[in-house]
């Protein structure tokens, strides 16, 4: 057979085509990654799924620390917000005047606006801490890597923090009530009234207290510097009772408050002295990757955003009160703000550095709770105990013994005054205290502005299902 040149050429070409096709097929077969792609997992973060299945001790430790991080979150903004509501502070923000106009009610309305300016710290932020606590509780149920005692320790800690955090939205929402059953995000429980929610929260704290009783002598997990006084189940149980005492006050269950305080000993200590007053639980701050103390500003600086002392707080101080020096710093040059009627001369003086801790709850508050509960229960013996407790506070701060009349009304006035200075800008006490006693109008007299003293926050937009 003779090939004609043409045929030969075509054949040669065919061979070439076939061989190239073969090479191509081989290429694809050998490089199956072009066809079969392996799933991509999150290269940046661990997943929720991973810890909900038989978590290891170190994973649970990380989640416990995570709960501390969530517990600390928003503390600064909350103090700024509720401090502004109670006219303990003003927030001077060079750019955003809304920290004055909205928060002080010059143009904003917290009671009606469901998306009130920058109010996450009293609603969504505490609920993220609650979610973290619930995750921790779920993780503990689904692991075989902890003993029952160790699990009880985690439960006790988680419920204690959860109780502390639940008080925040409750106090902000007040008569609107809040949801307490939020363990299933797809099936949230109903809104409970203030009283119902508060009793649930107190029950939650009691249950945490019980867990801590069964948790043995030591936690298997480590806590932050700020909770170093509460790093074993027995001590954590005292912190739990301290929070329970605060909750009892909100429930006006005065005997309950005293009972809780009794169980909070020796954290709760009726004694004088700054060290005794400052004994307590704190939020720790540090350098990156940690977090700076959000309420620290260098003395005399002119930052774009700063919390200053409300002039009325300075005006009403008692002569010689050591708390003035401890808490307030007289600036070389005053600060001005377009929405403030007067220049402001004082900024905070509590924190030495960006790493100073912010109080979570201190013995000084417990002593004042003791005094208040005794006063409210009444009777000469109780009132006398109350006066003694008040004097512990007064003496510590370089003030003479209480010399007013020993009546319930007078003592409540005195306790509220002491709370105003002892607990200045720590939680939002002033606003809450005055509301408890129906005296928000007294704050209004201090206002110095045409603002509004709000009673509570509107239920947030995200809960309403419509705007």
């Amino acid at each position: 057979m003779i090939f004609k040149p043409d045929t030969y050429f075509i054949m040669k070409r065919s061979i070439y085509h076939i061989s190239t096709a073969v090479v191509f097929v081989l290429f694809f077969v050998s490089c199956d990654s072009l066809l079969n792609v392996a799933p991509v997992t999150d290269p940046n973060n661990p997943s929720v799924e991973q810890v909900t299945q038989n978590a290891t001790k170190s994973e649970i430790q990380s989640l416990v620390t995570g709960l501390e991080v969530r517990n600390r979150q928003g503390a600064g903004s909350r103090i700024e917000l509720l401090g502004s509501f109670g006219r303990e502070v003003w927030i001077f923000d060079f750019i955003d005047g809304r920290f004055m106009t909205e928060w002080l009610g010059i143009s904003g309305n917290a009671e009606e606006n469901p998306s009130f300016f920058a109010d996450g710290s009293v609603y969504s932020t505490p609920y993220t801490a609650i979610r973290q606590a619930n995750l921790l509780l779920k993780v503990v149920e689904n692991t075989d890597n902890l003993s029952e005692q160790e699990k009880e320790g985690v439960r006790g800690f988680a419920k204690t923090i959860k109780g502390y955090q639940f008080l925040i939205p409750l106090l902000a929402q007040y008569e609107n009530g809040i949801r307490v059953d939020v363990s299933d995000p797809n099936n949230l429980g109903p809104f409970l009234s203030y009283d119902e929610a508060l009793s649930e929260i107190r029950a939650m704290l009691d249950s945490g207290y019980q867990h801590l009783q069964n948790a043995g002598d030591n936690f298997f997990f480590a806590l932050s510097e700020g909770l170093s006084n509460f790093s074993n189940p027995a001590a954590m149980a005292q912190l739990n009772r301290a929070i329970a005492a605060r909750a009892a006050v909100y429930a006006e269950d005065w005997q309950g408050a005293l009972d809780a305080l009794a169980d909070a000993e020796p954290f709760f200590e009726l004694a004088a002295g700054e060290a005794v007053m400052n004994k307590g639980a704190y939020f720790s701050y540090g350098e990156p990757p940690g977090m700076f103390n959000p309420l620290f500003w260098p003395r005399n600086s002119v930052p774009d955003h700063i919390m200053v002392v409300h002039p009325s707080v300075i005006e009403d101080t008692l002569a010689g009160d050591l708390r003035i020096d401890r808490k307030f710093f007289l600036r070389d040059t005053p600060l001005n703000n377009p929405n403030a009627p007067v220049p402001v001369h004082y900024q905070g003086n509590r924190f030495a550095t960006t790493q100073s801790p912010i109080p979570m709850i201190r013995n000084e508050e417990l002593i004042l709770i003791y005094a208040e509960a005794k006063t409210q229960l009444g009777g000469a013996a109780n009132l006398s105990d109350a006066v003694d407790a008040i004097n512990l506070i007064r003496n510590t701060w370089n003030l003479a013994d209480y010399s007013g009349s020993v009546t319930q009304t007078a003592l409540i006035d005195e306790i509220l005054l002491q709370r105003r200075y002892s607990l200045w800008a720590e939680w939002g006490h002033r606003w809450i205290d005055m509301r408890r006693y129906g005296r928000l109008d007294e704050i209004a007299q201090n206002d110095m502005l045409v603002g509004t003293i709000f009673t509570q926050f509107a239920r947030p937009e995200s809960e309403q299902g419509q705007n």
Partner: protein
Amino acid sequence: MKNRSLICSTLLLFVIGFFASPVIAQSAQEGSLQGVVTDAETGDPLPGVNIYLSDLQIGAATDTEGNFEIDNIPAGSHPIRASFIGYQTFEGTVTITPSEITTLDIQLKPSSLQLGELVVSGVATSVKRGNLANAVAKIDAEELTGSISPPTVASALQGKIVGTNMVSAGGAPGGGVDIKLRGISTLGAGSSQPLIIVDGVYLNNTELQTGLSAVSGQASAAQDDGANRLADLNPDAIASIEILKGPSAAAIYGARANAGVVIIKTKRGSAGETQVSFNQDVGYSTMLNKLNYASWSEEKIERVFGEGTALAQTAKEAYRNAVANGNLHDYEDVIYGNEGRILNTQLSVSGGNSRTQFFVSGSFMDEEGIIRKTGFSRRSIRANIDHRLSDYVRISSSSNYINTESQRGWTGNGSAGSVAQAVKYTPNFAQLFPDGNGNYPDNPYFQLNPLELIEYGLNDQDVNRFLQSLTADVTLYNQNQHSLRLDLTAGLDFMNSTTMVYQPPFIQYQQSLPNPGDVIHSTTKALNLNAQAFLIYNTTVGSDDNSYDLTSQIGYAHFYKDQQLQQVRGRGLIPGQTNVENASLQEIYNQFFQSVTDVGYIAQQKVNWEDKVIATVGARLDRSTLNADQEHFYFFPKASLALNLANFDFWGVEQLQQFKLRVAYGETGGLPSFGATFEALNSGVISGNLGLVRSSRTVDPNLRPETASGLEFGTDIGLSSGRASISATYYIKSVYDLILDQQLPSSSGLQVMATNAADLQNRGIELSLNVIPIQTDNFVWNATLNWWKNDAEITNLKVPPFTTGGFGAALGTFYIAEGYSPTTIVGTPVENGRFTFYGNTQPDFQSSFFSNIHLFGNWEFNFLWSLSYGQKAINLSLLFSDGAGTTPDWNGDYDGDGVPNGMDRQEEGAGLYVDDATYLKLRETSLYYTVPSQFLSDLSNDAVKGVRLGVSGSNLLLFSGYSGYDPEVSEFGNSALQTGIGVAPYPSARQVMFHVEFDF
């Protein structure tokens, strides 16, 4: 796995090389073709006409005398095509005789129709415009860069494409332009920006994080004010841009095409004499729209700084001194008065023979901004090589190395780092200039001295980038009306970006901080690899007078992306040091990894019945690791039909050369952004312990990708005289399964859940009228009028209506509710439980008018007007300037109540800031003179073939009632919804340039 993907994609490049290697003996049976191309009406020679033998894929361009020559053409009959902008494409057949020179002279008829122009239709195939069933916009180099010298591709496109809404982020050099094709494509979870493919390379067009927002005191990296990286591409090297606006055209690009596809082709060489071309542009930019801040008086100082306050006292003193000493300063002028120099140099060499063609170019562009020490520069070199190995194998390589440097400066929302914000707070009596030693005084009226920040602050970005594509086109079989081709493409885009944002410790703002001095260094390394293989089978069936042309293609496409971001931050710096090791607080600010792989299979069938009826069906199957279900293949079909009524025998209207009815349908996908499908535990540190916190995001376990379907109807009508054509399209683009961050009740402890929660629909009309009203020897006027509108509406919302974006309801936000466009602006006050409605950031309609006038053969005059009507924008700069007393109308008193406007605005709540953003802009205007070729050849002895001189202006005029610098503004860059929010942006510039072009 990452490495295997990479290795395999690289291997594919080599496999293409392997294909290219076996050289088949070249047949000796070759001949040459030559000829001259002239204007059919005037008889003038036409330079630059593309001559193309489509079966061989070789071509040439005519020289200045209209001559062309192609050598080494295999003997036999070949289809030939000659195309030139403004003329009807010539199509015919030429028969080459062995060892002889065949002469073919071609006359081209002027026309506004571009019926013969090739437009992409499949990934690996194209279709003649006359047969296209979609309204695909295609613009070429002349329209893109022929008039002005635009700094970036996006700015070159603005106002030119019917059906697009393009919004600049601000006026900073280096751009930043949001491109939306046919309305809203996503509510934020998917990509809002079109897929961009350059010579087959999937281009990375992300906006990179720089850390500016952190240093200047903002929380969200969306406000980093970066440019999208399309800015790296040199617009002068682009031959054409095709824009597949909707799913009906883009379906074949599948899961990444919801926001449309932009296909960019760069210039290539053509056979013939080597052409050297040198362009030099010189120009300057100045402020487009000076606002003129309000003047001051002692009474006003009392009002602004508080009556009787200490600050008012010192301010009054400063005012009196300034007046007495005559040093009141117009700070708007001081800050924005820099006359920015612009230089643009382009050098290209192209040519080749019938076997090998090349285009090599180098370019240098340097643009200064209207704020001192800001600017953008680009150095780019490109080599595009095409080589025909044999009659059956053709390979092409496109290589592009780019270096861009930006000095973005300090603008936007950043109380601690925005010159633009600081200047609003600075009254004219402030004394901010440095002393003899370069020490700047503190600004008593703001926390930073803008002059000091301009002088000492740095916000610089340096991008090095390499783009490479290789294609091989192998004819496997070509006999008896049957042809089978294999088309292989591989592309690579490697980008390395380093940025530094720096405020030295001694400047005013840093001095107020616990640890003065702040620097963030960011490094982004991004690699895109894509590879595709297509088999294309073409055949003709039927009889000679009733034939069907069938084109089938099947293909496979692979895309891989790997991107890494590292950011380190140092605070408490030693003066003069920017290395983080010299900081007392050292921090890994951010580290983020992304890895994505997509795989797709494509099939398409086209039937063309003698250019009368053209029908196409196709489908694509795509999977992506971005989807929640990473294994699942999603299906994207398409179908289209074009009826060229004018080509039917019954058509009796001689005056109409084209009368086409077309309908097209297609579906595309939109992928979630990376990380959106993961439920993460984030890290947090408290007293040295590392904790894990549950992220406040959660993901719907059944999350599907977003899909869009597009249905479009249209008609294209063209006069036989070529003097007028009109194109009209009506489209419905529906986007389903929009992924929304469904806001969860906050009490769940979760903020949002990513879920498929909404559908939306865009309906729009696109009209394009092209006319040549005057056509004489000395005066040719070519005009294009475009008009388009888009209405978006949420058609289904499975979650309660909500607001999103911006800075909250008090400052204007967007309302997502059934029956409303997602671009609806709402805000305070709340009345009857509802926010007040303030309008829409989408225009009611847009229009552009482009004219090209040729006078006396040598003069050319162009202008482009663009009109955007009815949209609203949120001007939050007013929040600053009203508080600081600098708003231009601050001193006025509209209601005569004695309180100045600045303290007594008529509107309340967010209405204060929502402003009418209708505008009319003279975007481009230019005048060119081409030196007569006879004169040149006499003068230079034929050394210089062409000289063109010109002057141009961009943004020369702006008419708008908007109260800020430019109604085109976007604080959030390329955001899906949040365009049209201005927070002290970089003011827009007007540019005037002079151009010189030489051809050798």
